[in-house]
């Protein structure tokens, strides 16, 4: 299903785009199984309409929106972002959506709103993986308020000129390109603005491996592998060396968000 959007040249990287086939057949979306091929096979059972998303917590105007109102909330832009998975591979994906700040401004955050929590759908009937105990369900992610308000933080409703395929987090997901991919929650049903830092699924599961910030950082290794380099899916073939991973995945404009912070401690 096509989704029209205007290219926003301010948010387009020049890297070669990953093929649609690779981007839709190699996914981490544990609600549909832990194998990378699982989501493409089993996500067909997800019903993306009707769908509502509730924004609540430290806000003056809590709201529940359906997908059609979400699609009309702000002009849809196409942005081409690098995506770096914590596992050491990367893709380049043309997303469709708008800055998350558009949505957050609408609900008028109170002075207490310091963090944003994202909660994904966890419905056993539609998502076979939710029966397994690999993670604590529902999948929960979080950002600091200033990270969430950064124009790069994208609320995505589509990719490659179409609405989001189910296996990529339909109907609405987050894309935070300077952080490892798991920070970008998929199939979101609730957004809560909070005073305290929210607990996040991967951090609960393995706190020494997945920190709250999880910014892409070539200097801070994952305990079980190096993060200094990455393999670009579809491009870095057998005989090419892995490419060097860039600080903040190359999005150096976010560096000021972390000035004065020890990124080794706040990994």
């Amino acid at each position: 299903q096509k989704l029209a959007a205007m290219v926003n040249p301010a948010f387009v990287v020049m890297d070669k785009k990953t093929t649609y086939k690779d981007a839709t057949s190699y996914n981490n979306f544990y609600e549909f199984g832990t194998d990378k091929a699982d989501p493409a096979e089993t996500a067909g059972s997800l019903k993306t309409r009707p769908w509502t998303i509730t924004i609540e917590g430290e806000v003056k105007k809590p709201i529940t929106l359906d997908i059609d109102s979400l699609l009309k909330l702000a002009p849809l832009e196409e942005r081409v972002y690098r995506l770096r998975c914590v596992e050491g591979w990367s893709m380049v994906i043309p997303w469709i959506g708008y800055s998350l700040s558009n949505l957050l401004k609408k609900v008028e955050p109170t002075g207490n709103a310091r963090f944003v929590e994202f909660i994904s759908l966890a419905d056993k009937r539609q998502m076979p993986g939710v029966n397994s105990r690999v993670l604590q369900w529902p999948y929960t992610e979080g950002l600091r308020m200033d990270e969430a308000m950064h124009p790069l933080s994208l609320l995505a409703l589509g990719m490659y000129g179409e609405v989001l395929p189910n296996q990529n987090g339909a109907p609405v997901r987050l894309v935070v390109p300077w952080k490892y991919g798991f920070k970008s929650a998929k199939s979101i049903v609730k957004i809560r603005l909070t005073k305290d830092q929210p607990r996040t699924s991967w951090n609960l599961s393995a706190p020494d491996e997945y920190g709250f910030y999880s910014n892409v950082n070539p200097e801070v290794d994952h305990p079980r592998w190096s993060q200094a380099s990455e393999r670009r899916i579809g491009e870095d073939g057998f005989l090419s060396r892995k490419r060097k991973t860039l600080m903040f995945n190359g999005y150096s404009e976010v560096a000021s968000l972390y000035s004065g912070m020890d990124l080794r401690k706040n990994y």
Partner: protein
Amino acid sequence: MKSLSNRQLQLLKLVVFVLAALPFLRLVYAVAQDNLGANPLEFITRNTGDWTLYFLCITLAVTPLRKLLSWHWLIRLRRMLGLYSFFYASLHFLTFLWFDHFFDISDMWRDIIKRPFITVGFIAFILLLPLAITSNNAMIRRLGGKQWQLLHRLIYLIVPLGVLHYFWMKAGKNLLLQPLIFAVIVGGLLSVRLYWRLQSKSTIT
């Protein structure tokens, strides 16, 4: 089935040789067809690692099966199965050395010392080397049966290390079912040996 003629045994060896090569041939075919999914190197690494563990388990199963079923000819297949374990382990290691580190030995070495799951896997592979080198009649003669057998008991250390390597690799993602299955199988194959050993001791005294 209790005993096989030489001709039958030769035929059986040939069949097992071909069957054991199939996972490798399938991999070569899939590489040629570019049919390994979006991340071919991840696929190759995992596939060769899986087959190493499968063959190690099969090799460890030879003696218990031979005793339980009295299929004494099974012992004649053990060397080939052990060498196939080494073959798949070598492919697994080569993938790591070549495509993860591009033959940069110091780079690889840093990786090995830094990450416990790689340390363990590397030790298991290194310990396999003397076993592979001595898997021929000339070496058995040179070492003498007793020494040779002692050396080859290293396998009781190597296989648990291999399972630990797999377990640790999966641990951070909480995907413990498959390593657990391997642990149960290997645990069973080793405890049955221990049990027999204790029994034979008690009957002697």
